[in-house]
């Protein structure tokens, strides 16, 4: 073996080529020296005789072509040679690394990338001066990779198609063809009725309603829907709750405000969006406003929570909401910023836009001018009770003083002949159910006298408060519809009928009054100005006449053909945001400053450059000297939170955070508030580390985090009142601090039931600790342990890895990382014993204590690189002892986030060189500035 190498060396000496410039670096002087170092430090364990880890380095290094990245990573992160072996000097190590980097043949990534769907939406929002979250309309665009910007993913026709339609939607929202909807104010203190078992958790109180908390029997957070409010158009609405807290406990009561569809008041899961959380600590009524984007068809609901009011039927405890005021759609200013942005400098006209009071129609029948008549009624239970929006009040056939004889029926008069698709029925809720309709038939008539044969006969469910739809075979415009009761529940054998709600199903015309903004121009010159200004911002460049021509041309064409100035502008703007100059980065830039401005703003803001960056670029003033100050300024801007959010989504996979719902049997206390706040903790924390330029060690451990009342409860920390996030300092015995022990990371690395030390360990090891792992070898029997009644079994199962050399080579860098975190369950809560699910009897009923038993003790002991640890405290110490590894990993991840590809070995050498030996000097913002500066130089 050595003989062969010597021959190669002799050859090399003969040609004596310069360092770093050879076709085959293994034959260089550098190669010779590096090889000697490898021989000195590595071959003891990794040569043809002792192939530890199945690696014969002596043989491998002489090959012309091999992947040296794993060796490189092990060497640069000092994982190899092992601590107890002879270590290369810094200079020697650098040489070995350089040689590996030199000879690594990596296929260069594409010199360009597409912008991600998130970057697209943010950029267009900023260009238009609107705030629309439409990224979900564009298909997930990162392929199988972790980072959204991955250069391997190429633009497809399907992506471009969705860009076209999202651009249409955003332009229509910014410059609506038929004007902006009138602003309305609706004040209400009523909620829709709900299932009788939930009605007991709300009570009429003073002028409004007192809510106590409940979770439905199946564990879903039951929400109470407000009135019949339905947003007339999509847009931003201010939801102002006049509310206060009731109860003598210290903690705030939270009101979670949701948008969702009111299907019916059953306890089925309902898809809802959390709009915001109101933290009620005030003991007198105050206004709390949530600004939310709502779509037509969505209703607003609230869910009130405090651990002291769980299913409290009586007593004055909970959230008292006096009223809800809905105002909207709101615009920040009038004229709207979209018009100001796009048509700046042109005369614009619009009548004033003043908010007007409005009310909602209780039933559709009333809205179409219809009326109702009945066969008979009991006093106090008149026909109007079916039409008052409540199913706690109801119509009942007469039973006093005399019993009304069948037939019992309701006739709905559709006096204007609207198209009726069917009926919507609900039983009355809260009573004994007497008279609930079991079967019916529907008859139609032109004049209300002669009725044909039934067009429909059917059955209805009793004992449910949900609205039940009765869909006609085909829509009818007949004037009279008879709902004939053919069978009803009778507790006493008498012939009765009762109905909580009855309404028609029909599509209501939406008379949305709008206010149009007009731009008083039709001149091509003005149009050109508009297009040019927009294009220069979008493209981050100065544009010549020639460059502008296609975009101006397509607008002008439309202006000529259709004569509408704003429409014509929209065509041009759409072309701009769908062009390759906009969708592909780098675009086409007039100088390097513009290019760097575009890069910086895409990385830090996921958007386009602002005025300052553009004006610096115009005079080519962006340089190595001015960039750090610009990064500093850009980080201070609110828009940098997008980068934090996006980076967390990609690096820490927080985008998958909500994909798993923890088991209600094991983790009954986990709720929507946790889903909302856990990722925020991580974002707030990372943002703080960057803004305050704290040492990178904080990624692993610190004595603080950002918490609120709910998270503090989850972590078992006392004295945090209120749901606003704030910095909380931990006592030394608290096992939190750093990313590893955050609920977000712990939850996203578990499947909602159990934790797997292997899966969580591999993830943490790779993504946070910065180890490089190779994929599992082929056809190895995988161990996927499960927590049984005996906790010992899990360790026993996994420790099998130790018995197999091939497995252990990697698993020694996986399993301990998982075991160290075994004290944290699948929701990130501390545990010292495992929980094992218990079966429930009959239908699952939610209960606070869940369904589980405590099994064996958690054993979080482990060993990393010959250092033993007892628990997560010791584990963190070991990770912290090597701050360079943590920093190097972060730098690599940020590089990949910023550039859309993993740094190659040469680039990694540069990144590594940025990291200070002194842990205190190695700081987050500094590192980001350096990584970005290096990326922008494009080396």
């Amino acid at each position, binding site marked *: 073996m050595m003989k062969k190498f010597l021959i190669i060396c002799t050859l090399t000496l003969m040609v004596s080529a310069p360092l770093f410039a050879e076709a085959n670096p293994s034959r260089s002087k550098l190669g010779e020296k590096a090889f000697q170092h490898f021989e000195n430090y590595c071959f003891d364990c990794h040569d043809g005789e002792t192939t530890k880890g199945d690696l014969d380095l002596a043989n491998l290094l002489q090959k012309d072509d091999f992947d040296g990245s794993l060796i490189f990573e092990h060497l640069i992160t000092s994982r190899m040679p092992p601590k107890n072996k002879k270590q290369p000097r810094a200079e020697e190590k650098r040489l070995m690394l350089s040689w590996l980097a030199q000879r690594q043949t990596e*296929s260069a990534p*594409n*010199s*360009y990338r597409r912008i991600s769907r998130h970057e697209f939406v943010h950029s267009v929002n900023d260009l238009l001066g609107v705030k629309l979250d439409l990224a*979900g309309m564009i*298909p*997930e*665009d990162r*392929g*199988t990779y972790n980072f959204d910007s991955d250069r*391997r*993913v*190429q*633009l*497809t*026709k*399907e*992506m*471009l*198609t969705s860009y*076209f339609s999202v651009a*249409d939607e955003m332009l229509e929202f910014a410059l609506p063809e038929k004007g902006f909807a009138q602003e309305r104010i609706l004040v209400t203190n009523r909620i829709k009725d709900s299932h009788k078992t939930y009605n007991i958790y709300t009570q009429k109180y003073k002028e409004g309603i007192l809510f106590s908390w409940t979770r439905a029997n199946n564990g879903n957070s039951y929400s109470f829907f407000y009135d019949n409010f339905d947003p007339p158009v999509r847009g931003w609405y201010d939801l102002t709750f006049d509310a206060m807290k009731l109860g003598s406990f210290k903690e705030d009561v939270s009101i979670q405000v949701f948008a969702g569809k009111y299907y019916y008041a059953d306890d*089925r*899961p309902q898809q809802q969006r959390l709009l915001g959380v109101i933290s009620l600590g005030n003991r007198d009524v105050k206004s709390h406003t949530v600004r939310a984007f709502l779509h037509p068809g969505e209703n607003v609901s609230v869910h009130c929570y405090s651990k002291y009011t769980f299913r409290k039927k009586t007593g004055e405890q909970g959230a008292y909401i006096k009223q809800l005021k809905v105002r909207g759609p709101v615009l920040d200013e009038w004229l709207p910023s979209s018009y100001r942005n796009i048509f700046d400098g042109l005369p614009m006209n619009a009548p004033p836009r003043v908010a007007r009071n409005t009310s909602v129609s209780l039933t559709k029948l009333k809205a179409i001018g219809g009326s109702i008549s009945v066969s008979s009624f009991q006093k106090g239970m008149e026909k109007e009770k079916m039409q008052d929006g409540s199913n706690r009040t109801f119509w009942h056939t007469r039973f006093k003083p005399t019993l009304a004889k069948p037939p019992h029926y309701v006739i709905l008069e559709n006096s204007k002949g609207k198209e009726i698709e069917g009926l919507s029925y609900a039983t009355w809720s809260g009573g004994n159910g007497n008279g609930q309709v079991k079967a019916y038939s529907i008859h139609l008539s032109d004049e209300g006298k002669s009725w044909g044969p039934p067009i429909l006969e059917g059955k209805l469910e009793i004992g449910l408060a949900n609205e039940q739809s009765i869909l006609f075979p085909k829509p009818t415009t007949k004037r009279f519809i008879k709902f004939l009761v053919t069978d009803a529940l009778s507790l006493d054998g008498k012939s009765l009928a009762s109905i909580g709600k009855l309404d028609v199903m029909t599509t209501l015309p939406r008379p949305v009054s709008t206010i149009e903004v007009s731009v008083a121009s039709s001149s091509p010159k003005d149009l050109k100005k508009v297009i040019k200004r927009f294009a220069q911002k979008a493209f981050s460049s100065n544009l010549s006449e*020639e*460059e502008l*021509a*296609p*975009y101006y*041309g*397509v607008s002008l064409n*439309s202006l000529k053909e259709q004569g509408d100035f704003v429409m014509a502008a929209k*065509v041009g703007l*759409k*072309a701009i945001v*769908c*062009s*390759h100059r906009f*969708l*592909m980065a780098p675009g*086409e830039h007039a100088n390097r400053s513009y290019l760097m401005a575009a890069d910086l703003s895409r990385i830090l803001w996921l958007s386009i450059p602002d005025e300052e960056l553009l004006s610096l670029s115009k005079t080519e003033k962006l340089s190595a000297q001015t960039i750090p100050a610009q990064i500093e300024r850009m980080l201070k801007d609110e828009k940098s939170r997008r980068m934090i959010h996006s980076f967390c989504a990609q690096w820490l996979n927080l985008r998958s955070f909500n*994909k*798993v*719902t923890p*088991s209600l049997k094991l983790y009954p206390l986990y709720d929507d508030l946790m889903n909302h706040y856990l990722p925020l903790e991580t974002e707030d924390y990372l943002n703080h580390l960057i803004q305050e330029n704290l040492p990178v060690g904080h990624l692993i451990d610190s004595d603080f985090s950002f918490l609120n009342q709910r998270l503090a409860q989850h972590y078992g920390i006392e004295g945090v009142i209120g749901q606003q996030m704030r910095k909380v300092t931990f006592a030394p015995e608290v096992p939190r601090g750093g990313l590893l022990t955050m609920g977000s990371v712990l939850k996203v690395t578990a*499947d*909602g*039931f*159990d934790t797997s030390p292997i899966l969580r360990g591999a993830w943490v090891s790779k993504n946070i600790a910065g180890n490089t792992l190779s*994929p*599992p*070898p*082929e*056809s*190895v*029997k*995988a161990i*996927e342990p*499960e927590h049984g009644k005996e906790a010992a079994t899990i360790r026993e199962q996994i420790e099998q890895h130790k018995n197999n050399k091939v497995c252990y080579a990697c698993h020694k860098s996986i399993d301990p990382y998982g075991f160290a975190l075994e004290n944290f369950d699948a929701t990130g809560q501390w545990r010292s014993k495992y929980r094992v699910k218990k079966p429930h009897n009959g239908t699952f009923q939610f209960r606070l204590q869940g369904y589980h038993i405590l099994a064996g003790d958690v054993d979080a002991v482990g060993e990393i690189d010959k250092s033993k640890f007892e628990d997560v405290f010791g584990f963190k110490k070991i990770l912290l002892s090597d701050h360079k590894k943590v920093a190097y990993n972060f730098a690599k991840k940020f590089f990949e986030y910023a550039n859309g590809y*993993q740094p190659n070995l040469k680039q990694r050498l540069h990144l590594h060189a940025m990291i200070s030996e002194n842990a205190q000097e190695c700081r987050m913002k500094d590192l980001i500035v350096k990584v970005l500066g290096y990326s922008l130089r494009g080396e």
Partner: protein
Amino acid sequence: MRTISRKDFLKIGAALPLAMKSLSLRAEGRRKQPPKRIIFINSCLGFYEPYFFPKKQGDFSTSDYLKGMKTKGKMTVFQNLFHPGMDTSNHDSEKSFLTGTPSPESPNFVNDISLDQVLVRKMGGETRFPFLNFSIYDRGWGCSWNDRGSAIPPMHDEEKIFGMLFGEEDLKAKKQQLKNDQEILSCLHRDLAQLRKRGSEHGKLDSYQPVIAELELQLNHEKFWLNTSKPKVEKSLSDDQEFVFSTKIRNLFELAKLAFRTDSTRVMTISMDWIYGAIKVPGATGGWHTLSHHGGRKDVIAKLSHIEIDTLKHFNQFLFELDQIKEEGGTLLDHTTVMMGSNFGDSSNHTCNNLPMIVAGGGYRHQTHTVLEKQTPLCNLYLELLHKHNIDVGSFGSSEEDMGLLNS
């Protein structure tokens, strides 16, 4: 101002005749021969082998999973098919399910065109939608890959799919929009030409150019179809919220059936991607992926099998319903090749040998259960499917030969 270039004209010209022919046939009221359709389904965590393959060759009653199939006479289970080059591919093997491209796990992997997309070239011109591809959730990739090896993002929202297939459109607005979009595409072409002349980076322009060219074709296609109203069907999607996963699978099959029945498309793929986290099906709740690593434990396999049984239940129903729809010379199933399988043979151990593969329908003389020689390239079957659909190619992926497994 606006002129149609010769190139544009040729493109429009190329797309139209097929569609014209199709329309005139529709006008005749009946066609002589019902069209051929094809659908590929990948269940990416596979099926537990001992329950899937018949224990006794050729006898479905010895397969726990397949014994209840209602269209037994019209299906064949293939044993021992595989894609070479997937030894260390793990989950990445999913990318190559319909392409057969080896080493999908390598960092610089570039995929090839998928089988369905090759078929689309031949079979896609005559319908409103040249092809459809579905997935369970918004993951951005599934079974279908274009000729540049890029994933074609599948649709996953049932409501949206239904609306696209059968929903009414504001024709006037749509017409105006198509016109605007076509103008925008010409504008983008002009800019690209300008940049090319100025020597802007070619790689970038080259990756954008074909995309707008394809969109241009699509717009022409859409414009043509504006003249024909969409078929009307009754909405038959389930909104059962209790078993969301199960509902999803059912609905995607339902949409596939409707799309074929109305001849809205002739080529489809469904990717049953691995759902992250726990799913609930009748009889079991659990992390699909976690369960798939059953390690041979009986209780875990029992849970996993509930998920697989649920999937196959919907598949069974899908075949059955296709077979209930009468067409000239047989049933819809007889004119639809249905291929269902997985990129994993044994997902517990991440092996990609002995893939569970079913071919149903298509009017073939089915063999019930065909046990092939070990390690027979799946691409042999793919090649045969291409031939069966009149695409005369010598090879596809790792194919060695058309083995004549499916005789008509």
